[in-house]
């Protein structure tokens, strides 16, 4: 038990993303209201985006913009250490993933609107009842 705590603290970013992901998954599975499910889906996707953002981070590192690159005094003298800069690639990937998740969210919302127009309800048990009546 004493070993577990440092492990959690040292890798808290992974624990956070796992917890967020499980919250999202729980909402998608257990909630009855379709909008709540859609929100759960969004939390689920955001958890993965945060995971990617956190793996690009390095301790004591800065933004991946090379200091004094444009005509600074010691632009050529300074050696660029990769360890001084956080890894921008996962962040760039997440721009695309955010676009995807927004698009999915939009489609899901549009579908929810269509369902509401058709059945006047977004509760899943009521929908199931309506559907079995036919």
């Amino acid at each position: 038990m004493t070993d577990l705590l440092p492990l959690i603290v040292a890798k808290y970013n992974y624990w956070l993303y796992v917890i967020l992901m499980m919250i999202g998954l729980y909402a998608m599975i257990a909630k009855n209201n379709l909008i709540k499910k859609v929100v759960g889906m969004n939390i689920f996707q955001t958890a993965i985006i945060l995971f990617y953002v956190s793996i690009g981070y390095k301790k004591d590192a800065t933004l991946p913009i090379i200091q004094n690159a444009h005509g600074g005094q010691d632009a050529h003298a300074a050696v660029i250490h990769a360890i001084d800069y956080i890894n921008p690639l996962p962040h760039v990937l997440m721009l695309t993933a955010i676009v995807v998740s927004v698009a999915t969210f939009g489609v899901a919302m549009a579908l929810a609107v269509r369902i509401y127009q058709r059945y006047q309800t977004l509760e899943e048990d009521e929908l199931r009842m309506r559907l079995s009546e036919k």
Partner: protein
Amino acid sequence: MDNYPVLIVVAPLLAALFSGLAVWIEERLSYPIALTGLAISVFSAFNVLLQVITSGPIQYRMAGWAPPMGIEYRIDLLNAMVLLLVSSIGFLNLVASYKSVKQEIYDRAPSFYIVYLLFMTGLLGVTATGDLFNLYVLIEITSLTSYAMVALGDRDRGPLASLNYVFIGVIGASFYLLGVGYLYMQTGSLNMADVAHILQSHQESSIVLTAFILCIIGLWIKMAFFPMHVWLPNAYSYSPVAFARVVAPLMTKVMVYVMIRLMITVFGLDYIFKSPFLADAVVWLASIAIIFGAVMALAQKNLKKMLAYIIVCEIGYMVGGAWMGNQLGMTGAILHILNDALMTFAMFLAVGNIVYKLKDVELFNLTGLFGKMPWTMAGFVLAAFSIIGVPPTCGFFSKWYLILGAFEKGAYHFAAALVISSLICAVLFFRVFEICFFPPISEDSGHKKSHSPVVMAEAPVSMLIVSGLVSLSLIVVGLYSGTIVNTIIIPFLK
């Protein structure tokens, strides 16, 4: 021309843009533009296949950026075959769709064509790309368009089926994305060939194992492998028939392709089959999937739903074959991608023709169809024989390889599941034939059961021609399956 690999993907994308713009001028223009885009795609895919067969794999660098920095399209024999398959099915289905779209979604025909083209772009991109993250984005393009398409279908249940599909699809894609994240953590690269190269020195890493499991589970959800199949029957049977015809044969098969690509190219078969336990478990799961799919298909009263469960069953064949861990099984799985896509397409074309005339495909409504629609039913019978696995049709040959693979591995339960499911399919289809063969019995004629006269009422010629062509291709592919295996699959696996 060097740009064929990218033209396959870009042509439908641009066509989607132009047919969207063309709607502002004249609504009728969107169809010919869509047709042209996919025709260019088919032509390029054909050229790429010839090029790959004669001179080996093609590496296409997007905008000239060298991998691993840039995105690379890497086309080898397996890709090239699947690309040609996907683009031709997309094209042929579009030819057959004109009339059924006009009838079924008359008010939104242009949007149907645009979304259809984007769907094809996604599928072709998934097949062509050699970059793991690009693959994710293209999978999402494919999924997003299919959500929209399913919602376009049945006006009562379409949106709800689609929303459930969205939830499950998002979980699948997110698992895949998470797996890619872990791979990136370990390797620092996203290019498939590069990742594979780096992974060779990380065989023992638990991160790689996590990545592998997450990716594969994500793909299993997307391909509706047995415990994760619940979304498929509703989504496919409530979508418009013009879309069901293309999503049923292609979507799941392309995902199987992606799984095989990850297994062979990225992780490597040696890595996957190092511990026999995992592969054994998957083959068992596949056997259960096969039996479950077949039994559920037997329980359905609607032809579309029945076929949807047959897809679940066929996915079991392919996953089982791929995880058999020997060359015969893998050959069977790859050959079955081709065969199953063709026979499901032929089957759904026949169903599309029936829907066009009858509006629904509840089994009890199908009486007397052999007299009413003889050509459609001829196609239906051929496709059914192929799914059952009657020898001259192509379905037999891939099943043969799968069974040989199962025997070589000693997975007799898989071989047994395969044979049992074939028998169930035979029962299933002969039951449909029986219903379709006899004309409806008119109730009012008292003691003498007289048959009401059957009038021939066939689907439009364009649909019939496509249906006939694809059904004949089942036999042709069956007869030439030796050639396909020797020129494409065996050299690929070497």
